[in-house]
């Protein structure tokens, strides 16, 4: 009897592992080549994303959040930035060991990305319909007519009014919000399993931002896509994601389920970040700002990356770098004094 | 130290440009110390030694008056430098001012830039020829004419870059501080044009050599008695079969110098300010 239960439990775990993790980053290290040395920009980044989940990566500029996204997408190839170690397992395959030609088949098909600037990521000389059709036909054997039909469906899906007219528009004829919708349509063209959105609403007004975020969540409900949302805005992350990873200076310093994070912030940086945001709901007279500035990537720092700005720094903070420790189930923090402060 | 660092950044890894710069140094030394380097007076006629082949004591041989070609070439280097620097100054001062003012004061710009457009419609050499026929042959006039010809392109480039710069936020900030027009133009805009200005100067310097040689060759440039490479070519062209060295030496000097200046200019453009690459490509 007991044996049977154990077997079932074991099977369950195996099934969970197989079905749950769509994407696994394991100790990913990224460095940028500068003159004659490699400057590390992302340190031991480990993340996992289950199907139908939304993971938010939050941090300030230069924290490595965008580079992580580009690494997953495979867009670092040929740049100054190199992946130095670690693995990116997507759908059970290690993307870093894959041939570039095979990897390109996944990009835009099983995995798609939307960027911050909807104007520059659309080609200004092609009609938006043609740009959607091009992506579809790159990955699917489908007639031009069929692809056009699909493009119309997609435009409808992203709630562009009068898709029959809009399909013949050029990017400059659309508003910023509509262009971002078109970008989402292109990204969703082949029903990707993973959608990476790098600051998708930063260039948009708040009212449009809300529409675009609602649209992304609505699409996720319908298609079951997993989403990685990268943002500097804790509010956007809080309202959109199930899970959050906070990055600082290339390290994940805290990761947790969203609700857990906002009820028990454990890392001083995460707390400082939240305290830095003036609230729209309550009055603040003074902001508890984090002192100092983010060190540049070529500055050498020993110990915890945050110790020069931290109010709780003790001697050990400047000597050894803290590991990412689980303080609770699903809640990991990179701080020596995670449970105490 | 910063000058050394700049020079290092320009020539590092650019072998051809380094060679060009070295060659220009040789020309500059020859030009400055012409009276010490040249073994003979460039104007001294020795009828007995007419059309001597290269050798000793006439390193590059002699021309049909028996003048020492080497000495004339050395003094020609001096003339090349005068023409080059003179044209650069005229072109940059005139063209730069026109471009700067036209972009900053748009009403004036409408008027001035149309004139520049008309002048630019003429091919450079044709414009220079027309202007030279109106003037007497002299060193100063040649410098002025070549300067004016290249002032047109300089004005265009400065016009474009000033238009961009005057909409920069830091210009608005200067206006908010109460800065006057002249302070904005010369303290805030002009210093941001130094690097393209330098690059433009190097190209004008090179093209001025070609232009001056062409004018000399056509008999419209420097007065015939002046020892310049163009004049040497012009005077000795009929001896091309009997004494080819008379054309070979000045011809090679012109080609090498123009080529070197262009290489240095390219290197400066690429290293100092890659942003302006496209603005200058049209020269």
């Amino acid at each position, binding site marked *: 009897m007991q044996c049977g239960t154990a077997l079932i439990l074991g099977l369950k775990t195996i099934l969970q592992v197989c079905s749950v993790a769509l994407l696994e980053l394991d100790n990913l290290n990224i460095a940028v080549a500068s003159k004659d040395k490699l400057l590390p920009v992302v340190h031991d980044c480990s993340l996992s994303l289950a199907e139908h989940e939304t993971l938010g990566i939050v941090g*300030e*500029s230069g924290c490595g959040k965008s580079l992580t996204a580009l690494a997953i997408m495979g867009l670092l190839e040929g740049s100054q930035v190199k992946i130095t170690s670690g693995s990116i397992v997507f759908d059970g395959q290690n993307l870093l060991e894959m041939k570039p030609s095979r990897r390109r088949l996944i990009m835009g098909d099983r995995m798609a990305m939307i960027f911050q600037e909807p104007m520059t990521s659309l080609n200004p000389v092609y009609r938006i319909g043609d740009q959607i059709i091009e992506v579809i036909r790159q990955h699917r054997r489908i007639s031009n007519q069929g692809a056009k039909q699909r493009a119309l469906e997609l435009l409808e899906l992203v709630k562009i009014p009068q898709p029959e007219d809009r399909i013949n528009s050029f990017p400059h004829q659309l508003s910023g919000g509509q262009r971002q919708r078109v970008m989402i349509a292109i990204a969703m063209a082949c029903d990707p399993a993973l959608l990476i959105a790098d600051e998708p609403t930063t260039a948009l*007004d*708040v*009212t449009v*931002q*809300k529409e675009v975020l609602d649209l992304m969540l609505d699409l996720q409900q319908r298609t079951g896509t997993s989403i990685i949302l990268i943002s*500097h*805005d*804790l*509010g*956007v992350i*809080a*309202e959109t994601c199930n899970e959050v990873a906070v990055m600082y200076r290339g390290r994940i310093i805290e990761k947790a389920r969203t609700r857990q994070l*906002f*009820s*028990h*912030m454990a890392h*001083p940086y995460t*707390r*400082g*970040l*939240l*305290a*830095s*945001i*003036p*609230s*729209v*709901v309550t*009055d*603040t007279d*003074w*902001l*508890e*700002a*984090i*002192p100092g*500035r*983010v060190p*540049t990537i070529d500055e050498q720092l020993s110990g915890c990356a945050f110790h020069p700005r931290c*109010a709780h720094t003790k001697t050990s903070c400047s000597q050894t770098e803290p590991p990412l420790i689980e303080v609770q189930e699903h809640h990991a923090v990179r701080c020596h004094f995670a449970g105490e402060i | 130290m910063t000058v050394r660092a700049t020079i290092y950044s320009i020539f590092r890894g650019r072998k051809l440009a380094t060679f060009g710069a070295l060659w220009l140094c040789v020309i500059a030394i020859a030009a400055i110390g012409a009276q010490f380097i040249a073994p003979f007076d460039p104007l001294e006629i020795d009828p007995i030694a007419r059309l001597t082949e290269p050798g000793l004591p006439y390193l590059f041989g002699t021309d049909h008056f028996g003048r020492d070609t080497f000495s004339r070439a050395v003094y020609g280097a001096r003339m090349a430098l005068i023409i080059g620097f003179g044209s650069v100054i005229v072109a940059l001062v005139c063209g730069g001012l026109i471009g700067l003012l036209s972009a900053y004061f748009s009403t004036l710009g409408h008027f001035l830039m149309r004139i520049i457009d008309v002048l630019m419609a003429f091919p450079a050499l044709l414009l220079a020829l027309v202007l030279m026929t109106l003037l007497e042959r002299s060193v100063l006039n040649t410098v002025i004419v070549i300067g004016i010809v290249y002032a047109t392109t300089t004005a265009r480039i400065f016009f474009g870059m000033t238009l961009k710069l005057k909409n*920069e*936020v*830091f210009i*608005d*900030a*200067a*206006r*908010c*501080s*109460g*800065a*006057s027009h002249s*302070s904005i133009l010369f*303290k*805030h805009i002009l*210093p*941001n044009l*130094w690097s393209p200005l330098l690059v433009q100067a190097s190209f004008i310097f090179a093209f001025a050599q070609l232009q001056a040689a062409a004018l000399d060759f056509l008999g419209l440039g420097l007065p015939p008695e002046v020892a310049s490479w163009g004049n040497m070519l012009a005077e000795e062209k009929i001896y091309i079969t009997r004494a080819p060295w008379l054309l070979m030496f000045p011809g090679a000097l012109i080609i090498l110098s123009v080529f070197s200046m262009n290489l240095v200019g390219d290197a400066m453009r690429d290293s100092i300010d890659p942003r302006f690459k496209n603005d200058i490509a049209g020269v």
Partner: protein
Amino acid sequence: MADQPLLEVKNLSTHFKTKSSASFTARTVVKAVDDISFHINPGEVLSLVGESGCGKTTVGRTLTKLTQHSIGKALFRGQDILPMSQAQFRPLRREIQMIFQDPFASLNPRLTIQQTLAEPLFIHKLVSSRDAAIQHIKEILEKVGLDASIMKRHPHEFSGGQRQRIGIARVMIVQPQLVIADEAVSALDVSIQAQVLNLIKQLQRDNGISMLFISHDLGVVRHISDRVAVMYQGKIVETANKHDIFDNPQHSYTKKLLAAIPKVPTYQGALSHAT
């Protein structure tokens, strides 16, 4: 005299003519700012909020005379600045200063910090000698939280937050009466934004400066202002003191705007991080 507003804007409109895409000759008139009125009392912070293209930036540029073609009145201490020529306006520039959004674009890359900060001092004849200017610059740098030793350096050596502090120093060094801050903290990272907001608020209070704070970020606006004017498509749709705007909005657009903001769950622990 005491209750007279420092700045009173009456029926201000700014129209731009743009070339129509339909034909070469037809021109359409865009009403960037359409008949707006507001006032700012001495020592008061009025925020102008709205989304991109609502005309809020044009208002700021009109009041600093960086943009022309306006009709209406803008009375600064009772004196209408709109009909003034640039030369007539120059003495007033000392009193009406502007903080710009982009700290990377608003400093001349070729000038040292000292040159940048000395310029307004000499223009407005606030100092007579170089030594006096340097003394002033040292004091102001200290006030904005920078070290005096940075004077000889160029803008590219500084981070965004430091540059914005330099921009604020350039404004504060002439002791203005009215500061127009156009998205002054929008380009900064959250943690730096908080520092700079604190700095602006402190300087504003210490010197009793009136401020027109132009922003799209409602959290920042709630933090810094006394009163708020909401702009939509060139018009001011609602003006009220900040509690009324945020806790009891009247206009439908204000309500929509407030509803659209992603809310950060408040967490008490966040406020105690510095303790």
